């Protein structure tokens, strides 16, 4: 399995990265190498194997529906890159 520039560009767009041509070229070779290594998994027949998502055997963990104190707005806004009044400010979002 190898990747081409077009695929690298697509993955970069999913990842929200802008890459220059040099970076794209490096990623093509580095990720290609890793993917080639990963191919070894295909040696195994996993037809009847259940996927393991959690290493723990626990299930049904809940909290009760209890309202807790929220954090003070000034505190969260103080670490934000940009705010306006009571809001977080971002560049215009077109619908």
């Amino acid at each position, binding site marked *: 399995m190898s990747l081409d520039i077009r695929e690298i560009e697509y993955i970069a767009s999913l990842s929200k990265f802008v890459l220059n041509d040099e970076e794209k070229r490096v990623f093509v070779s580095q990720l290609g190498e890793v993917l080639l290594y990963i191919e070894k998994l295909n040696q195994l027949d996993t037809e009847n194997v259940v996927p393991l998502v959690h290493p723990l055997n626990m299930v*049904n963990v809940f909290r009760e529906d209890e309202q807790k104190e*929220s954090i003070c707005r000034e505190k*969260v806004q103080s670490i934000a890159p940009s705010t306006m009044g009571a809001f977080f*400010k971002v560049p215009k979002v077109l619908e």
Partner: protein
Amino acid sequence: MDYEVVIGLETHAELSTESKLFCGCSTKFGAEPNTQVCPVCLGMPGVLPVVNKKAFEYALKAALALNCTINQHTNFDRKSYYYPDLPKNYQISQNYYNLGVDGYMNIEVNDVMKKIRIHNVHLEEEAGKLIHPDEAGADYSLVDFNRAGVPLLEIVSYPDMRNAAEVENYMYTLRKILLYTDISDCKMQEGSLRFEASISLRKDGEQKLGNRVEMKNLNSMKSVLKAIEYETSRQSELLDRGEKIERETRLWDEIREKSVRMRSKEEAQDYRYFPEPDLLPFVIDEKWVCSIKETLPELPLEKKQRFVESFQLSDYDAGLLIEDKILADFFEECVKEVNFPKVFCNWIINDLLREVKEKKLDIALLKIKPAQLAALVVMINKGIISNTIAKDVFSEMINTGKEPKTIVEEKKLVQISDEGLIDEILDKVIASNPNAIEDYKKGKKNALAFLMGQVMKETKGKANPKLVNELLKNKLDS
């Protein structure tokens, strides 16, 4: 050419829990921006979600009310896309093992019952709110995260609807079910109930479904119906011209009443769903399902059926009563007091609803209680007050919540059934209306009504009409 319209709906309903789905922040609507937030719902680094049990059980309840099969093993998945109102840039939702699958809901259009299949019911988190300032040339948007993380139920139907009437009924019926099960306040104006439609056309008689267009930004039930109408004609015009319908997502423009392209299938988002590793899976056993089933109320259509059968109400009347569960409960409480179902039904759907509409009342906060309406009806039945008087008393009950007896006593509204007293008044009326007496003797029927009215005027409506009628006739005919 004639086409068949094929419509499916996706419904989002915010669940009415105290706290958010994964953190303890309040879900109350209308708070100051960004005051109901915490590190968890702001998606700060290192924080973790913990599932609100009530939200989970509400979703189960909805799935059961919609006749779904409950997946014994279910879990949350992450759905990835970037948007500034989505704090983690992934939404914790369900994709691979939805909580409820393969359900249905019955709708009734023109007295015909139709089964609309439900593809799945699942639980996810709400996004925040983006505000686009009106000021000209503003190059920014603002974000409020108060809604971010509120529990959201998604109900996905199969494309089983064929016209706007069915869609309208589906929306109302579903809304009723959510209100009956008490899991959402379904306030469309606050965004706690929202619909998205997918619409496709196919030639009459054809089996294969056409390419579907997904319609977003439908802010009211009215816009859903308008969008369907618009989209139907847009698509059929295209097809008539021999053009193909593209699979795409379109936005409904409420003001211009038309739909505009948002993205095509090629640009479709790649959501990269995978199981949420921060939350463990859920195993829902039979016992749990049963205990939730026990909390399910009688659902609207069942209730309607029962009202028709046990109380001999018309289909139409029963339909009006079950429109709102509070109304239906009010009715049943009344009937429990005295068994006059038809009488109570009339009081509720005529007088009560009129008062509610005129005075813009909230049905949930009515001052009048069922036992009081029952007492009023008993007073009429015993001849203590007349029907006419009763209407005024009822209005007063709505305003004050006072007992009918108290109102009648305070305003001295007890019916006059004293024959001697009525006799005196009759004499007076006869004496002062000789023309009417002439008319009566000539056989003019409305003269009697006129004289009756005069008596009522004289007694401020308190005279027992039956008695007056009887005595008056006796007097005139003798």
